[in-house]
Protein backbone atom coordinates (compact mmCIF):
# COMPACT_ATOMS: atom_id res chain seq x y z
CA UNK A 1 0.00 0.00 0.00
CA UNK A 2 1.73 3.17 -1.05
CA UNK A 3 1.42 5.55 1.90
CA UNK A 4 3.14 8.38 0.13
CA UNK A 5 3.84 11.45 2.21
CA UNK A 6 0.50 13.02 3.07
CA UNK A 7 -0.15 16.26 1.33
CA UNK A 8 0.45 19.05 3.83
CA UNK A 9 -2.39 21.61 3.80
CA UNK A 10 -1.29 24.92 2.39
CA UNK A 11 -1.95 27.43 5.13
CA UNK A 12 -3.37 30.56 3.58
CA UNK A 13 -5.55 33.20 5.23
CA UNK A 14 -9.09 31.87 4.88
CA UNK A 15 -8.68 28.23 5.94
CA UNK A 16 -6.86 29.21 9.15
CA UNK A 17 -9.73 31.51 10.14
CA UNK A 18 -12.20 28.71 9.44
CA UNK A 19 -10.11 26.28 11.47
CA UNK A 20 -10.08 28.61 14.45
CA UNK A 21 -13.83 29.08 14.04
CA UNK A 22 -14.26 25.29 14.20
CA UNK A 23 -12.36 25.13 17.48
CA UNK A 24 -14.26 28.13 18.87
CA UNK A 25 -17.62 26.55 18.11
CA UNK A 26 -16.52 23.33 19.83
CA UNK A 27 -15.32 25.26 22.90
CA UNK A 28 -18.59 27.20 23.01
CA UNK A 29 -20.61 23.98 22.80
CA UNK A 30 -18.65 22.61 25.78
CA UNK A 31 -19.39 25.85 27.63
CA UNK A 32 -23.13 25.97 26.94
CA UNK A 33 -23.84 22.21 27.12
CA UNK A 34 -23.18 21.69 30.83
CA UNK A 35 -24.67 25.04 31.84
CA UNK A 36 -27.87 24.20 29.94
CA UNK A 37 -28.08 20.95 31.85
CA UNK A 38 -27.62 18.73 28.83
CA UNK A 39 -24.87 17.02 30.83
CA UNK A 40 -24.53 17.03 34.66
CA UNK A 41 -22.35 20.07 35.30
CA UNK A 42 -20.71 18.41 38.31
CA UNK A 43 -19.03 15.85 36.06
CA UNK A 44 -18.65 17.84 32.81
CA UNK A 45 -17.32 21.27 33.74
CA UNK A 46 -17.79 24.09 31.20
CA UNK A 47 -14.78 25.20 29.15
CA UNK A 48 -14.23 28.36 31.23
CA UNK A 49 -13.80 26.35 34.43
CA UNK A 50 -11.46 23.94 32.67
CA UNK A 51 -9.26 26.80 31.47
CA UNK A 52 -9.19 28.37 34.93
CA UNK A 53 -8.17 25.04 36.44
CA UNK A 54 -5.52 24.67 33.75
CA UNK A 55 -4.18 28.03 34.85
CA UNK A 56 -3.93 26.76 38.43
CA UNK A 57 -2.33 23.50 37.32
CA UNK A 58 0.32 25.35 35.33
CA UNK A 59 1.23 26.97 38.64
CA UNK A 60 1.93 23.61 40.28
CA UNK A 61 5.51 22.35 39.92
CA UNK A 62 4.23 18.75 39.86
CA UNK A 63 2.49 19.60 36.57
CA UNK A 64 5.75 20.55 34.91
CA UNK A 65 7.53 17.50 36.30
CA UNK A 66 4.77 15.30 34.89
CA UNK A 67 4.91 17.13 31.53
CA UNK A 68 8.67 16.65 31.32
CA UNK A 69 8.38 12.97 32.25
CA UNK A 70 5.75 12.55 29.53
CA UNK A 71 7.86 14.34 26.90
CA UNK A 72 10.95 12.36 27.91
CA UNK A 73 9.19 8.99 27.80
CA UNK A 74 7.57 9.87 24.50
CA UNK A 75 10.73 11.22 22.84
CA UNK A 76 12.96 8.42 24.15
CA UNK A 77 10.48 5.72 23.12
CA UNK A 78 9.98 7.28 19.71
CA UNK A 79 13.74 7.61 19.11
CA UNK A 80 14.43 3.97 19.99
CA UNK A 81 11.47 2.80 17.90
CA UNK A 82 12.46 4.88 14.86
CA UNK A 83 16.14 3.92 14.94
CA UNK A 84 15.39 0.24 15.57
CA UNK A 85 12.58 0.31 12.98
CA UNK A 86 14.79 1.79 10.28
CA UNK A 87 17.80 -0.45 10.94
CA UNK A 88 15.77 -3.65 11.18
CA UNK A 89 13.49 -2.51 8.33
CA UNK A 90 16.31 -1.84 5.87
CA UNK A 91 18.06 -5.03 6.95
CA UNK A 92 15.00 -7.28 6.65
CA UNK A 93 13.79 -5.42 3.57
CA UNK A 94 16.91 -5.73 1.51
CA UNK A 95 18.04 -9.28 2.37
CA UNK A 96 15.40 -11.58 0.80
CA UNK A 97 16.38 -14.56 2.98
CA UNK A 98 16.00 -12.57 6.20
CA UNK A 99 12.71 -11.11 5.03
CA UNK A 100 11.26 -14.56 4.33
CA UNK A 101 12.60 -16.09 7.56
CA UNK A 102 11.21 -13.38 9.81
CA UNK A 103 7.94 -12.77 7.95
CA UNK A 104 5.86 -15.05 10.18
CA UNK A 105 7.47 -13.81 13.37
CA UNK A 106 6.77 -10.20 12.43
CA UNK A 107 3.19 -11.15 11.62
CA UNK A 108 3.03 -13.08 14.93
CA UNK A 109 4.32 -10.30 17.18
CA UNK A 110 2.84 -7.28 15.39
CA UNK A 111 -0.86 -7.79 16.14
CA UNK A 112 -0.23 -8.59 19.81
CA UNK A 113 -1.80 -5.57 21.52
CA UNK A 114 0.75 -3.63 23.55
CA UNK A 115 -1.78 -3.74 26.40
CA UNK A 116 -0.99 -7.44 26.73
CA UNK A 117 2.53 -6.37 27.71
CA UNK A 118 1.31 -4.47 30.76
CA UNK A 119 1.48 -7.44 33.18
CA UNK A 120 4.95 -8.19 31.76
CA UNK A 121 6.38 -4.70 32.17
CA UNK A 122 4.85 -4.25 35.62
CA UNK A 123 6.69 -7.32 36.79
CA UNK A 124 9.90 -6.30 35.07
CA UNK A 125 10.14 -2.62 35.94
CA UNK A 126 7.10 -1.77 38.08
CA UNK A 127 5.41 1.64 37.70
CA UNK A 128 8.58 3.31 36.41
CA UNK A 129 9.23 5.33 33.24
CA UNK A 130 10.94 2.29 31.71
CA UNK A 131 7.70 0.26 31.85
CA UNK A 132 5.81 2.76 29.74
CA UNK A 133 8.92 3.13 27.59
CA UNK A 134 8.75 -0.56 26.64
CA UNK A 135 5.06 -0.18 25.75
CA UNK A 136 5.78 2.90 23.63
CA UNK A 137 8.75 1.33 21.85
CA UNK A 138 6.82 -1.87 21.18
CA UNK A 139 3.80 -0.11 19.64
CA UNK A 140 5.74 2.58 17.73
CA UNK A 141 8.39 0.15 16.43
CA UNK A 142 5.94 -1.78 14.27
CA UNK A 143 4.61 1.41 12.67
CA UNK A 144 8.12 2.34 11.50
CA UNK A 145 9.22 -1.19 10.61
CA UNK A 146 6.23 -1.90 8.34
CA UNK A 147 6.55 1.40 6.49
CA UNK A 148 10.32 1.01 6.02
CA UNK A 149 9.89 -2.52 4.67
CA UNK A 150 7.21 -1.19 2.29
CA UNK A 151 9.64 1.51 1.22
CA UNK A 152 12.55 -0.87 0.63
CA UNK A 153 10.24 -3.20 -1.31
CA UNK A 154 9.10 -0.28 -3.45
CA UNK A 155 12.61 0.32 -4.83
CA UNK A 156 12.29 0.38 -8.61
CA UNK A 157 14.15 -2.70 -9.99
CA UNK A 158 15.34 -0.57 -12.91
CA UNK A 159 17.04 1.87 -10.49
CA UNK A 160 18.63 -0.99 -8.55
CA UNK A 161 19.95 -2.64 -11.73
CA UNK A 162 21.31 0.65 -13.01
CA UNK A 163 23.18 1.17 -9.71
CA UNK A 164 24.56 -2.35 -9.81
CA UNK A 165 25.62 -1.98 -13.43
CA UNK A 166 27.61 1.12 -12.49
CA UNK A 167 29.45 -0.93 -9.88
CA UNK A 168 27.92 0.71 -6.79
CA UNK A 169 28.76 -1.40 -3.70
CA UNK A 170 26.09 -2.65 -1.30
CA UNK A 171 26.52 0.33 1.02
CA UNK A 172 26.45 2.85 -1.85
CA UNK A 173 23.31 1.19 -3.24
CA UNK A 174 21.57 1.58 0.12
CA UNK A 175 22.77 5.19 0.39
CA UNK A 176 21.82 6.33 -3.12
CA UNK A 177 18.99 3.99 -4.22
CA UNK A 178 17.25 2.32 -1.31
CA UNK A 179 17.27 5.25 1.11
CA UNK A 180 15.80 7.96 -1.22
CA UNK A 181 13.05 5.58 -2.32
CA UNK A 182 12.27 4.51 1.21
CA UNK A 183 12.44 8.02 2.66
CA UNK A 184 8.77 8.99 2.03
CA UNK A 185 7.73 5.73 3.71
CA UNK A 186 10.10 6.35 6.61
CA UNK A 187 8.59 9.79 7.11
CA UNK A 188 5.06 8.35 7.02
CA UNK A 189 6.20 5.69 9.49
CA UNK A 190 7.61 8.34 11.82
CA UNK A 191 4.40 10.36 11.57
CA UNK A 192 2.29 7.31 12.50
CA UNK A 193 4.77 6.30 15.21
CA UNK A 194 4.69 9.78 16.78
CA UNK A 195 0.92 9.72 17.37
CA UNK A 196 0.92 6.07 18.53
CA UNK A 197 3.84 6.80 20.85
CA UNK A 198 2.02 9.67 22.53
CA UNK A 199 -1.15 7.60 22.99
CA UNK A 200 0.80 4.68 24.50
CA UNK A 201 2.80 7.05 26.73
CA UNK A 202 -0.34 8.49 28.30
CA UNK A 203 -2.06 5.07 28.41
CA UNK A 204 0.96 3.46 30.09
CA UNK A 205 1.08 6.20 32.70
CA UNK A 206 -2.68 5.95 33.23
CA UNK A 207 -2.88 2.17 33.55
CA UNK A 208 0.52 1.27 35.05
CA UNK A 209 1.16 4.46 37.01
CA UNK A 210 4.52 5.47 35.50
CA UNK A 211 5.18 9.14 36.27
CA UNK A 212 3.75 11.62 33.78
CA UNK A 213 0.53 13.34 32.68
CA UNK A 214 -1.35 10.04 32.47
CA UNK A 215 -0.66 9.35 36.14
CA UNK A 216 -1.62 12.92 37.07
CA UNK A 217 -4.93 12.32 35.33
CA UNK A 218 -5.47 9.11 37.29
CA UNK A 219 -4.39 10.83 40.50
CA UNK A 220 -6.90 13.62 39.84
CA UNK A 221 -9.60 11.03 39.16
CA UNK A 222 -8.89 9.23 42.43
CA UNK A 223 -9.10 12.61 44.17
CA UNK A 224 -12.47 13.31 42.52
CA UNK A 225 -10.90 16.53 41.14
CA UNK A 226 -13.07 16.47 37.97
CA UNK A 227 -11.91 19.84 36.60
CA UNK A 228 -8.24 18.90 36.88
CA UNK A 229 -8.96 15.74 34.88
CA UNK A 230 -10.41 17.76 32.00
CA UNK A 231 -7.64 20.35 32.17
CA UNK A 232 -4.99 17.64 31.81
CA UNK A 233 -6.95 15.97 28.98
CA UNK A 234 -6.84 19.34 27.21
CA UNK A 235 -3.05 19.34 27.60
CA UNK A 236 -2.68 15.85 26.10
CA UNK A 237 -4.82 16.98 23.15
CA UNK A 238 -2.64 20.06 22.63
CA UNK A 239 0.50 17.91 22.84
CA UNK A 240 -0.92 15.77 20.06
CA UNK A 241 -1.67 18.77 17.86
CA UNK A 242 1.84 20.20 18.38
CA UNK A 243 3.39 16.82 17.58
CA UNK A 244 1.37 16.61 14.40
CA UNK A 245 2.40 20.09 13.28
CA UNK A 246 6.04 19.25 14.04
CA UNK A 247 6.00 16.04 12.01
CA UNK A 248 4.29 17.81 9.09
CA UNK A 249 6.95 20.54 9.22
CA UNK A 250 9.74 17.94 9.20
CA UNK A 251 7.94 16.09 6.43
CA UNK A 252 7.80 19.14 4.18
CA UNK A 253 11.43 19.94 4.92
CA UNK A 254 12.82 16.43 4.42
CA UNK A 255 10.67 15.62 1.39
CA UNK A 256 10.94 18.98 -0.37
CA UNK A 257 12.15 17.15 -3.46
CA UNK A 258 9.38 14.54 -3.44
CA UNK A 259 6.72 14.80 -6.21
CA UNK A 260 3.79 14.61 -3.77
CA UNK A 261 5.09 17.73 -2.03
CA UNK A 262 6.48 19.33 -5.20
CA UNK A 263 3.20 18.69 -7.08
CA UNK A 264 1.52 20.41 -4.21
CA UNK A 265 3.20 23.68 -5.07
CA UNK A 266 3.07 23.57 -8.85
CA UNK A 267 -0.61 22.84 -9.56
CA UNK A 268 -2.33 26.19 -10.08
CA UNK A 269 -4.98 27.03 -7.50
Amino acid sequence: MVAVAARAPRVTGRPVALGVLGLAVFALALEVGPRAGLVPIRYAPPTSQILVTLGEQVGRSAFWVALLDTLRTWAEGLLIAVVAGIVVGVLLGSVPFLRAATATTVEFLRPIPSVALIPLVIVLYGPTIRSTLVLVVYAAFWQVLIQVMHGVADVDPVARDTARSYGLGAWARIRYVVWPTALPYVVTGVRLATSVALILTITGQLVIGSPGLGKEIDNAQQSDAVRVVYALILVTGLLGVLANLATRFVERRVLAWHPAIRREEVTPA
Partner: protein
Amino acid sequence: MTLVRRGVLLLALPVLLFAAWWVASAGSTDFYWPSLSSILAAFGRTWTWDRVQADVLPSLGRLLAGYLLAVVVGVALGAVIGSVRWVRALVEPLLEFLRAIPPPVLVPIVILLSGIGDRTKILVIVSGCVWPVLLNTVEGVRGRDEVLSDTCRTYGITGPLRLRHLVLRAASPQIVTGARQALPIAIILMVISEMMAANEGLGFTVVQFQRGFQIPEMWSGVLLLGLVGILLSLLFRAAERGLLGWYHGQRAGRREW
Protein backbone atom coordinates in the same frame (compact mmCIF):
# COMPACT_ATOMS: atom_id res chain seq x y z
CA MET B 1 11.99 -22.11 -3.64
CA THR B 2 10.86 -25.63 -2.97
CA LEU B 3 7.82 -26.02 -0.74
CA VAL B 4 9.87 -27.63 2.04
CA ARG B 5 12.40 -24.78 2.12
CA ARG B 6 9.63 -22.22 2.25
CA GLY B 7 7.88 -24.17 5.00
CA VAL B 8 11.09 -24.29 7.04
CA LEU B 9 11.68 -20.59 6.53
CA LEU B 10 8.15 -19.73 7.60
CA LEU B 11 8.16 -21.79 10.78
CA ALA B 12 11.81 -21.86 11.84
CA LEU B 13 11.99 -18.68 13.87
CA PRO B 14 8.62 -18.93 15.70
CA VAL B 15 9.34 -22.52 16.72
CA LEU B 16 12.83 -21.51 17.85
CA LEU B 17 11.42 -18.67 19.97
CA PHE B 18 8.78 -20.91 21.49
CA ALA B 19 11.40 -23.52 22.37
CA ALA B 20 13.66 -20.84 23.88
CA TRP B 21 10.77 -19.62 26.03
CA TRP B 22 9.96 -23.20 27.06
CA VAL B 23 13.53 -24.00 28.09
CA ALA B 24 14.20 -20.67 29.76
CA SER B 25 11.08 -20.90 31.89
CA ALA B 26 11.15 -24.64 32.53
CA GLY B 27 12.13 -24.89 36.18
CA SER B 28 10.98 -21.41 37.10
CA THR B 29 9.94 -20.90 40.73
CA ASP B 30 9.33 -17.19 40.26
CA PHE B 31 5.77 -16.32 41.24
CA TYR B 32 5.22 -14.01 38.34
CA TRP B 33 7.22 -16.08 35.80
CA PRO B 34 5.53 -19.49 35.69
CA SER B 35 6.93 -22.08 33.30
CA LEU B 36 5.49 -22.09 29.79
CA SER B 37 4.28 -25.64 30.42
CA SER B 38 2.17 -24.49 33.37
CA ILE B 39 0.84 -21.58 31.30
CA LEU B 40 -0.24 -23.93 28.52
CA ALA B 41 -1.78 -26.27 31.10
CA ALA B 42 -3.64 -23.27 32.54
CA PHE B 43 -4.70 -22.34 29.00
CA GLY B 44 -6.51 -25.62 28.54
CA ARG B 45 -8.00 -25.45 32.03
CA THR B 46 -9.13 -21.83 31.83
CA TRP B 47 -10.39 -21.27 28.34
CA THR B 48 -13.09 -23.93 28.31
CA TRP B 49 -15.88 -23.58 25.80
CA ASP B 50 -18.36 -22.07 28.29
CA ARG B 51 -15.82 -19.44 29.46
CA VAL B 52 -15.15 -18.64 25.81
CA GLN B 53 -18.89 -18.17 25.35
CA ALA B 54 -19.23 -16.14 28.54
CA ASP B 55 -16.20 -13.87 28.13
CA VAL B 56 -14.41 -14.13 24.77
CA LEU B 57 -17.38 -14.01 22.40
CA PRO B 58 -19.02 -10.92 23.99
CA SER B 59 -15.68 -9.13 23.81
CA LEU B 60 -15.21 -10.04 20.14
CA GLY B 61 -18.82 -9.04 19.45
CA ARG B 62 -18.23 -5.59 20.94
CA LEU B 63 -14.90 -5.36 19.10
CA LEU B 64 -16.55 -6.10 15.75
CA ALA B 65 -19.49 -3.75 16.38
CA GLY B 66 -17.21 -0.90 17.44
CA TYR B 67 -14.75 -1.52 14.60
CA LEU B 68 -17.38 -1.69 11.83
CA LEU B 69 -19.22 1.35 13.22
CA ALA B 70 -15.92 3.26 13.27
CA VAL B 71 -15.21 2.30 9.63
CA VAL B 72 -18.69 3.37 8.45
CA VAL B 73 -18.59 6.67 10.36
CA GLY B 74 -14.98 7.29 9.35
CA VAL B 75 -15.64 6.74 5.64
CA ALA B 76 -18.87 8.77 5.62
CA LEU B 77 -17.32 11.76 7.42
CA GLY B 78 -14.07 11.37 5.47
CA ALA B 79 -15.90 11.47 2.11
CA VAL B 80 -17.68 14.70 3.08
CA ILE B 81 -14.60 16.35 4.59
CA GLY B 82 -12.38 15.26 1.70
CA SER B 83 -14.73 16.57 -0.97
CA VAL B 84 -15.81 19.93 0.42
CA ARG B 85 -12.83 22.25 0.79
CA TRP B 86 -14.30 24.69 3.36
CA VAL B 87 -15.62 21.84 5.53
CA ARG B 88 -12.11 20.42 5.67
CA ALA B 89 -10.67 23.80 6.62
CA LEU B 90 -13.36 24.18 9.31
CA VAL B 91 -12.97 20.83 11.04
CA GLU B 92 -9.33 19.85 10.44
CA PRO B 93 -7.78 21.55 13.50
CA LEU B 94 -10.62 20.24 15.68
CA LEU B 95 -10.09 16.72 14.36
CA GLU B 96 -6.35 16.98 14.99
CA PHE B 97 -7.12 17.90 18.61
CA LEU B 98 -9.68 15.14 19.19
CA ARG B 99 -7.44 12.59 17.46
CA ALA B 100 -4.58 13.38 19.78
CA ILE B 101 -6.48 12.62 22.99
CA PRO B 102 -5.56 9.06 24.06
CA PRO B 103 -8.82 7.04 24.04
CA PRO B 104 -8.27 5.47 27.50
CA VAL B 105 -8.53 8.96 28.96
CA LEU B 106 -11.97 9.34 27.33
CA VAL B 107 -13.40 6.20 28.97
CA PRO B 108 -14.68 8.02 32.11
CA ILE B 109 -16.32 10.68 29.91
CA VAL B 110 -17.99 8.05 27.70
CA ILE B 111 -19.20 6.25 30.86
CA LEU B 112 -20.64 9.54 32.06
CA LEU B 113 -22.52 10.08 28.80
CA SER B 114 -23.71 6.59 27.96
CA GLY B 115 -23.75 4.57 31.14
CA ILE B 116 -21.90 1.33 31.82
CA GLY B 117 -23.42 -1.13 29.37
CA ASP B 118 -22.01 -2.62 26.16
CA ARG B 119 -22.86 0.62 24.37
CA THR B 120 -20.18 2.43 26.33
CA LYS B 121 -17.52 -0.13 25.49
CA ILE B 122 -18.47 0.02 21.82
CA LEU B 123 -18.32 3.82 21.87
CA VAL B 124 -14.85 3.66 23.46
CA ILE B 125 -13.68 1.41 20.62
CA VAL B 126 -15.25 3.74 18.04
CA SER B 127 -13.64 6.78 19.72
CA GLY B 128 -10.20 5.33 19.05
CA CYS B 129 -10.68 3.56 15.72
CA VAL B 130 -12.52 6.26 13.80
CA TRP B 131 -9.46 8.52 13.43
CA PRO B 132 -7.16 6.43 11.21
CA VAL B 133 -10.13 5.56 8.96
CA LEU B 134 -11.38 9.15 8.79
CA LEU B 135 -8.01 10.75 8.08
CA ASN B 136 -7.00 8.16 5.48
CA THR B 137 -10.38 8.53 3.76
CA VAL B 138 -9.88 12.29 3.60
CA GLU B 139 -6.40 11.74 2.10
CA GLY B 140 -7.78 9.19 -0.36
CA VAL B 141 -10.69 11.39 -1.43
CA ARG B 142 -8.48 14.47 -1.74
CA GLY B 143 -5.77 12.66 -3.61
CA ARG B 144 -7.99 11.27 -6.36
CA ASP B 145 -6.80 11.41 -9.94
CA GLU B 146 -7.53 14.65 -11.81
CA VAL B 147 -7.99 12.93 -15.15
CA LEU B 148 -10.55 10.54 -13.68
CA SER B 149 -12.58 13.35 -12.13
CA ASP B 150 -12.46 15.25 -15.49
CA THR B 151 -13.68 12.09 -17.21
CA CYS B 152 -16.64 11.95 -14.82
CA ARG B 153 -17.50 15.58 -15.43
CA THR B 154 -17.28 15.13 -19.20
CA TYR B 155 -19.42 12.02 -19.31
CA GLY B 156 -22.02 13.43 -16.92
CA ILE B 157 -21.30 10.87 -14.20
CA THR B 158 -22.63 12.55 -11.05
CA GLY B 159 -24.54 11.82 -7.83
CA PRO B 160 -24.52 8.34 -6.29
CA LEU B 161 -22.67 6.82 -9.26
CA ARG B 162 -19.91 9.41 -8.91
CA LEU B 163 -19.79 8.93 -5.15
CA ARG B 164 -19.41 5.18 -5.53
CA HIS B 165 -17.03 5.04 -8.44
CA LEU B 166 -15.00 8.21 -8.25
CA VAL B 167 -15.03 9.23 -4.60
CA LEU B 168 -15.08 5.94 -2.66
CA ARG B 169 -13.58 3.35 -5.02
CA ALA B 170 -10.71 5.67 -6.00
CA ALA B 171 -10.00 6.25 -2.31
CA SER B 172 -10.45 2.57 -1.35
CA PRO B 173 -6.72 1.71 -1.16
CA GLN B 174 -6.25 4.57 1.32
CA ILE B 175 -9.44 3.65 3.22
CA VAL B 176 -8.16 0.07 3.59
CA THR B 177 -4.84 1.42 4.91
CA GLY B 178 -6.83 3.37 7.52
CA ALA B 179 -8.90 0.31 8.40
CA ARG B 180 -5.72 -1.75 8.88
CA GLN B 181 -4.23 0.89 11.18
CA ALA B 182 -7.49 0.92 13.17
CA LEU B 183 -7.52 -2.85 13.83
CA PRO B 184 -4.80 -3.04 16.54
CA ILE B 185 -6.32 0.05 18.17
CA ALA B 186 -9.69 -1.74 18.31
CA ILE B 187 -8.11 -4.68 20.15
CA ILE B 188 -6.29 -2.43 22.61
CA LEU B 189 -9.48 -0.46 23.35
CA MET B 190 -11.51 -3.64 23.70
CA VAL B 191 -9.20 -4.63 26.56
CA ILE B 192 -8.96 -1.17 28.12
CA SER B 193 -12.74 -0.61 27.98
CA GLU B 194 -13.08 -3.84 29.94
CA MET B 195 -10.48 -2.89 32.48
CA MET B 196 -12.56 -0.01 33.74
CA ALA B 197 -16.25 -0.85 33.80
CA ALA B 198 -17.20 -4.42 33.12
CA ASN B 199 -18.27 -7.68 34.67
CA GLU B 200 -17.36 -9.93 31.74
CA GLY B 201 -15.07 -9.95 28.74
CA LEU B 202 -11.57 -11.08 27.76
CA GLY B 203 -9.83 -7.95 29.07
CA PHE B 204 -11.84 -8.09 32.29
CA THR B 205 -10.95 -11.75 32.86
CA VAL B 206 -7.23 -11.12 32.39
CA VAL B 207 -7.36 -8.27 34.89
CA GLN B 208 -9.37 -10.37 37.34
CA PHE B 209 -6.72 -13.11 37.14
CA GLN B 210 -4.04 -10.52 37.78
CA ARG B 211 -5.91 -9.13 40.81
CA GLY B 212 -6.65 -12.63 42.05
CA PHE B 213 -2.93 -13.50 41.76
CA GLN B 214 -3.80 -16.42 39.47
CA ILE B 215 -0.64 -15.85 37.42
CA PRO B 216 -0.59 -18.85 35.03
CA GLU B 217 -4.20 -18.10 34.11
CA MET B 218 -3.29 -14.45 33.59
CA TRP B 219 -0.50 -15.41 31.18
CA SER B 220 -2.84 -17.78 29.34
CA GLY B 221 -5.18 -14.79 28.89
CA VAL B 222 -2.34 -12.67 27.52
CA LEU B 223 -1.46 -15.50 25.11
CA LEU B 224 -5.10 -15.72 23.98
CA LEU B 225 -5.13 -11.95 23.45
CA GLY B 226 -2.10 -12.31 21.17
CA LEU B 227 -3.78 -15.13 19.24
CA VAL B 228 -6.94 -13.01 18.83
CA GLY B 229 -4.77 -10.23 17.42
CA ILE B 230 -3.14 -12.59 14.94
CA LEU B 231 -6.43 -14.18 13.90
CA LEU B 232 -8.03 -10.78 13.26
CA SER B 233 -5.07 -9.56 11.17
CA LEU B 234 -5.27 -12.75 9.04
CA LEU B 235 -9.02 -12.24 8.56
CA PHE B 236 -8.34 -8.63 7.61
CA ARG B 237 -5.72 -9.70 5.03
CA ALA B 238 -8.23 -12.07 3.41
CA ALA B 239 -10.95 -9.40 3.28
CA GLU B 240 -8.45 -6.93 1.83
CA ARG B 241 -7.42 -9.31 -0.94
CA GLY B 242 -11.08 -9.59 -1.95
CA LEU B 243 -11.82 -5.89 -1.70
CA LEU B 244 -8.69 -4.58 -3.41
CA GLY B 245 -8.02 -7.35 -5.95
CA TRP B 246 -7.92 -4.79 -8.70
CA TYR B 247 -5.48 -2.58 -6.84
CA HIS B 248 -2.92 -5.28 -6.17
CA GLY B 249 -3.20 -6.45 -9.78
CA GLN B 250 -2.65 -2.95 -11.05
CA ARG B 251 0.40 -2.34 -8.86
CA ALA B 252 1.93 -5.69 -9.77
CA GLY B 253 1.06 -5.09 -13.45
CA ARG B 254 2.74 -1.71 -13.46
CA ARG B 255 5.87 -3.20 -11.92
CA GLU B 256 6.37 -5.66 -14.83
CA TRP B 257 6.32 -3.14 -17.68
